[in-house]
């Protein structure tokens, strides 16, 4: 009886695809890094995340 070949996991499939398409992978890494940093910049600049917590002190 022939041994059944084990099905690769999703991560293995992705890793294998990335190894075979290194240029595309690198381009994706560049774009995703740039987009995440821009997103972080916009969030810090406009979300009021760094503003003073007046809304807490206003309760007292």
């Amino acid at each position, binding site marked *: 009886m022939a041994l059944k070949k084990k099905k690769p996991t999703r991560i293995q499939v992705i890793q294998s695809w990335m190894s075979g398409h290194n240029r595309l992978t690198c381009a994706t890494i560049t774009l995703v890094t740039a987009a995440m940093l821009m997103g972080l910049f916009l969030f810090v600049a406009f*979300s009021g995340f760094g503003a003073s917590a007046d809304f807490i002190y206003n309760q007292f």
Partner: protein
Amino acid sequence: MDKHILHTRLAALALGVGLAACAIALVCLLFPAQSETRPGVDYGYVYSGVKSSSVEFVEAAMTEESLMVLGSSELSTPRRLVPQVPVQVFGKADYGVRLMLIGEAFDQSLWHAIALGAYQDAGIPRNKVVLIVTPGWFVDGGQDSDTFKTRFSYSLYSRFNANANVPEEAKSYVLNRLKQLGIDETTISSANPSLPQDYLNAFALKALDDLKLRQGLISVRDKGIELVDEDTPSTPDFESLRKEAEQTGAEMSTTNDWGVEDGFYTGQLEPALADAAGSRAGETYTNTPEYDDLDCFLDIADACGIEVLVVLSPEMGPYYDYIGIGKDVRSNCYEQVRSIVNDHNAQIADFSGREYEKYFLYEIVHFGWTGWVDVEKIIYEFAQDGA
């Protein structure tokens, strides 16, 4: 992992960081922060909706000598037609009073109420403002939704809502009015955030509005005038200014008996006169929420401890008689405004009695040669009172 692959991926990561840094630097370089102003430049007399909607810019441009003047289209009066406009009087010498003109055409009491709340959050010099009120704001039906939407500013509204000094009743009144005027739920909710999606929307709207204002302010920065700053401020000579104004009015209005500027009269008014006779006979100046909006503005000023001078502008009597908005209708409007102002801790400079005075207006609704001088005198006295 293959060493070569690892190196290329690390290089890709570094390239991503570099790209983001370049993009951020480019945005900041091409569109400077709203608060950026040039030293030695006075932006107070620049007529601009973008300027009026940017609290950060106006805050940076004001000094302790500034006096905020909220108005609408009269602030656009060109100096080549009326050489007595504020920039020619207060902008050319140091009288210890620098006007900061806020508002543009179609800004009415509701817009001003929002702006007052937003600017008070940043601090208003002298704790005084002047509001120029025009009877044309009180037309039946009130301001239409499409016009209001063109002037609605998300930045001002979110800042207005964030101001703890603005009473909750006023915030709730403004919110209902915005709904009536068709401002969408997403915009309103994001300025009053309670759900996670409101915060996300607020983040996106703030970013977009900021970029829009940054872009608009680029041209505003070129329109400022040189700041005149003397060691000892002088006093304006309003008597001689008025004499000059009468003379200028007479020179610039030679084609008609109403005292209307020649270019406006022959180019726009005269050709339309035949069709205009009695055309507005049904107008009552009563069926409008504008009076309540004005009341709301004054409520906010009272709650925030802001002293207000309401300058009540007249309409040109002979013209409005001609088109069918009679003296009784106009008088009723003036009276209602006076009554609202008197119910609050506010002063009124009532120019409604000047409807038939030649040269007070340069066309049918906007202050003219003598009109601006008289308004400036009142504003100067208001600024100096208690200073």
